[in-house]
């Protein structure tokens, strides 16, 4: 795998002036110095990685889901089979297997395509026993490209993997939502002389979101809880840093020696995720209240009566 990352972070850069000699201070001052070392800064940055992943994956998964759901409803049989298989496969197979599979498969797929395009006169087989060999120019990213390209490539692969897996879940939700739109609406549109594409675009899609929202909200929570799996994809995320920083440190290698603190780091991660999911839960509940307002559903009716 091409993206083993190693940002050479300076450990000496101190934020507070009293941090110059950590062995002389203790208590809260020591802790404030400890928590502001360069490596801890990397930990805080990795939180942003998680948020960035969520921000990119959410819409991407929705797009994949929309494609999958539309394909599953298609009148063209092979497209329909493809859509249904895509949705069904993720149900039967653990997602971790998908994550581990796609990250290598995508990497090799991209390199294979580039190999075919860039080195047409290469006559040796690509798979030689246990090796996967493509020509130098087809390597992705190129062997001589800078560190940030490797990191970005790794992150992009992770995003694509997440989008494919969660796209299938989203497709399931959207497929259900499309079927929940009352048939009469579509029949009315037909009676107005719209063709299939027009019905899909003008009637089905605008109405389906109300039915899809609870499922999508649920999916969002699941997506949040799946972000630590970034660690498995080789990205230096919060799990990586928590393991790295929590392990016991001896005075020889660091100014801040401490015993094995990994349990506290993971407790902090646990609390972080609890707060994050709780906030999302509240926001989604609020959004739902907003959207059901005035809708001809049970919840909307209950709101009307309460008012």
């Amino acid at each position: 795998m091409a993206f083993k990352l190693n940002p050479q972070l300076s450990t000496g850069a101190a934020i507070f002036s009293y941090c110059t000699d950590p062995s002389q201070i203790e208590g809260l001052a020591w802790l404030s110095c400890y928590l502001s070392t360069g490596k801890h800064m990397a930990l805080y940055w990795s939180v942003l990685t998680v948020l960035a992943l969520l921000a990119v994956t959410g819409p991407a998964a929705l797009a994949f889901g929309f494609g999958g759901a539309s394909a599953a409803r298609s009148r063209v049989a092979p497209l329909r089979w493809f859509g249904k298989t895509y949705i069904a496969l993720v149900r039967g197979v653990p997602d971790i297997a998908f994550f581990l599979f796609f990250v290598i498969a995508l990497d090799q797929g991209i390199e294979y395509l580039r190999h075919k395009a860039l080195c047409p006169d290469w006559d040796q087989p690509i798979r030689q026993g246990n090796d996967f060999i493509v020509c130098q120019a087809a390597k992705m990213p190129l062997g001589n490209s800078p560190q940030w390209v490797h990191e970005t490539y790794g992150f992009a692969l992770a995003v694509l993997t997440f989008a494919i897996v969660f796209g299938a879940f989203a497709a399931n939700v959207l497929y259900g939502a499309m079927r929940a739109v009352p048939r009469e609406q579509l029949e009315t549109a037909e009676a107005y002389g719209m063709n299939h594409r027009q019905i899909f675009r003008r009637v089905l899609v605008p109405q389906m979101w109300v039915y899809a929202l609870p499922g999508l909200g649920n999916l969002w929570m699941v997506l949040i809880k799946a972000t630590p799996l970034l660690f498995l994809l080789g990205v230096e995320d919060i799990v990586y840093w928590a393991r790295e920083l929590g392990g016991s440190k001896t005075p020889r290698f660091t100014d801040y020696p401490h015993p094995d603190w990994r349990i506290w780091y993971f407790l902090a991660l646990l609390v972080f995720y609890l707060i994050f999911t709780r906030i999302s839960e509240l926001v989604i509940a609020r959004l739902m209240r907003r959207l059901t307002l005035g809708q001809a559903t049970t919840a909307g009716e209950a709101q009307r009566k309460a008012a």
Partner: protein
Amino acid sequence: MSCIQTIQDYALRSIGIGERLLPREDFTLCEQFTLIGSGMIWNIYFGTVALLLGFFFATALALGKASARAFLRKPSEWFIFIFRGSPLFIQFFFGYFLFLSLKSNYAFFDPFTAAWLGAVIVLFCNTSAYSAEIFYGALQSIPKGDVEAADAYGLSGWSRFRRVIWPTMLRLAWPSYTNEAIFLFHATTLVFVSSFPAWQQRGDALYYAKYFADKTFNPFIPYPILAGFFIILTLIVISLFGLANRRLNRHLPAERPQKIRLLPNLLR
């Protein structure tokens, strides 16, 4: 080496019976099938134990959450919130390091850092919380008439719970509970990729699939094998739960059978 020989050597490799060394090169399809299948023993073990024990705890938690008394309700609510609100992946890490630090102080916790006990405890807590939420929802939607009828028959307390409330709760919760069971089995693959060490390379199906994928740098064989095994396992779980579902609904009129509708509960 013939395939029969491979099966004899590796079919029980994941629990330490058979050939000590894993194959190192020239992996045959037979070896991959056998070893990954051997790893399924762990997945089935984790899933079954956590599910069976979790079932009872989940019932207790659901009753606690539905209770009017705050000293029962609050702890149940918090337990469910903590285990449903955080990623299982982090729970595994946290559980493992918790047991590790307990072990350094008390020798009693020695076995807890091994997957067979420690991971089962984490999975047990996790599935209990998810199932409890399902059961709680079912408790809330028990028809009022059923409980009133039980009262009219003079049933109360334990016998009312045992004969009326509990069966109805299970009947209503069963479709979602089936999903929970399926995704619990899927979640068992996280055990060895998170924190728990696979002692003497005795790992689960994903551990061996990853082993082959890393060695051959070819994900297109071991992962589809793993997927196949899990689809079979999922089908078995669905049919077993379907049998239980039939029994739970046996008194209902036959023309509208309660079909299990499988909705994705997804990963936790």
